[in-house]
């Protein structure tokens, strides 16, 4: 596991759009051409939410438009920092650093990508889905998103059949649907068309419906709450599948200098503390969640 050594660009990014969604979720689009040009699925930006706050806040990237030089983010108000970010207006500038972090790695021999996003873990999965759609290799991603607050989009009944889905589980994310990428949603809140349960329940149903050949082509990618990632790591173990998980931790410098944002991982030489910012945020699930 080598740390991410690509250039990190500091940019004064003008806010182009900033919209509130239910459940304290916000969608933001900023002008940051260098970051847009270099970001990959799994990269994040480190945002100065307010000039007087000592620490920036790491927010994962949902989409980039390289031609327009814009970056889209989706975040949820979690504490004081994100609350301040939510008050920033269109037209204001934000100091942001990015793109940061070791991104997700796509493997052509494992075309059947199972993308699992929980809450504000969805954005990097959207980025990865788009990256797979654009890749020349014919990836066949399937996305499962879970949320306990209303989804930050109007779910739509899917026109793409997915084997193994329980009856009535038909809600999908329109953006992915428009790209021809199937998706399904889960929640314990009883939202229509969503699976009443966890993302991993739906993942098991999907995996169980695959034949042995297809199953051997699956790789799991996940971002979301710690407990969800732990459950995803167990799922991957149960089906003997590779899995990459994107981790979070309180972060200071965001460039590998302070070792503040570590997660404990298992290495061939024993346990090690790896920095979420540059060694991650994407890690091998087996290293973070050993059996």
């Amino acid at each position: 596991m080598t740390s991410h050594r690509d250039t990190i660009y500091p940019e004064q990014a003008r806010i182009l759009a900033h919209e509130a969604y239910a459940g304290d979720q916000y969608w933001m689009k900023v002008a940051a051409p260098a970051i847009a040009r270099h970001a990959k699925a799994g990269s994040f930006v480190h945002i100065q939410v307010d000039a007087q706050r000592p620490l920036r806040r790491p927010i994962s990237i949902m989409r980039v438009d390289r031609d327009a030089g814009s970056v889209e983010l989706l975040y949820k108000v979690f504490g004081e920092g994100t609350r301040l970010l939510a008050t920033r207006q269109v037209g204001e500038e934000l100091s942001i650093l990015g793109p940061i972090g070791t991104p997700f790695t796509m493997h052509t021999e494992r075309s059947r990508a199972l993308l699992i996003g929980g809450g504000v873990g969805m954005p990097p999965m959207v980025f990865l889905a788009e990256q797979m759609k654009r890749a020349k290799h014919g990836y066949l991603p399937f996305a499962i998103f879970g949320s306990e607050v209303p989804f930050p989009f109007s779910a739509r009944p899917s026109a793409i059949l997915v084997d193994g889905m329980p009856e009535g589980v038909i809600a999908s994310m329109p953006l992915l649907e428009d790209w021809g990428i199937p998706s399904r949603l889960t929640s314990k809140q009883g939202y229509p068309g969503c699976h009443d349960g966890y993302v991993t329940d739906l993942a098991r149903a999907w995996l169980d419906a695959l034949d042995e050949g297809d199953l051997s082509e699956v790789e799991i990618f996940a971002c979301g709450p710690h407990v969800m990632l732990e459950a995803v790591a167990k799922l991957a173990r149960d089906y003997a599948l590779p899995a990459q998980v994107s981790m979070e931790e309180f972060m200071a410098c965001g460039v590998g200098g302070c070792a503040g944002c570590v997660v404990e991982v298992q290495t061939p030489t024993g346990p090690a503390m790896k920095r979420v910012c540059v060694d991650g945020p994407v890690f091998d699930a087996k290293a973070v969640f050993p059996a």
Partner: protein
Amino acid sequence: MNPDDKQMLAVDFCGLKMDSPIVLLSGCVGFGEEYTRVSGFSNRDVGGICLKGTTLEPRLGNQPHRVYETPAGMLNSIGLQNPGARYVVDKILPTLDLSETRFIANISGSTVEEYAEVARIFDDSPVDAIEVNISCPNVKKGGAAFGNDPEVSAAVVAMVRKATSKPIITKLSPNQTDIAENARRCIEAGTDAFAVINTLMGMAIDIEERTTILGNNMGGLSGPAIKPVALLKVHQVYQVCRDHGIPIIGQGGITTPEDALEFLIAGATTVGVGTALFYDPLVCKRINRGIVDYLKRHGMSEVGQLTGTLRLNQAKSACEVCKDDD
């Protein structure tokens, strides 16, 4: 910056020629290689870099959370995660471009002997100086920090002095009764310079869970919140250092050129920048520029002319103040 302006920033720090009075602080910039991935950042903008705190054996460091934002500052408790002195000297130092700036090792130990051993390893390496972090717990003395007691601080410095001929910078803790007395003892024990101050110990609590937020329960407070404390400590240590020609790296919450100037005036020869990098990784360029502009405005030709130029008010006792009011 033009060469004449650049020349104004040059400073001699206990024999080390520095191109800028800015020193990047230990624990903020890894081993000097991490920030170079930020576009526009250059190690050449600073006079020196204190490398990550290093111990004899590799250390895993503390469990997360390791950092937490607080009003005008942050708590950190990294726990000296490092790969061990031998690895740093054999594997990391050879990868650095030593022409960029002055590289200063930062050493820690759990015993006085460990400090000496780490110092010996760095003595036989290309680092320009050795900074001694005496704020570590002394395992043989019940875990109280070496730096809290002038006697023990001096013992560490004396051992390190025997182990190296490189300049020694002793990093003083603010968490003690009489920092000036500690400085006096460390000068006697052979330190060549001081770094003033290390972080102030603090805590943060999650009221819902009723737990501490940091994995290590407590951590060091840094950032603008500690600047006034640091300024006073620099002033106090300077009173002791002045007559001995012992220079000080003044540090604690410096984020602007004005902050840096305050520390220089209080008695610092160089200024440490740490937490401010987290606000703005390109802050050093801004601080250099601001110092040059100030020097010009005040008809000075070099930054060294500022050190210790503080004029104190003629302090009156409380009673005298009362009389004046009558």
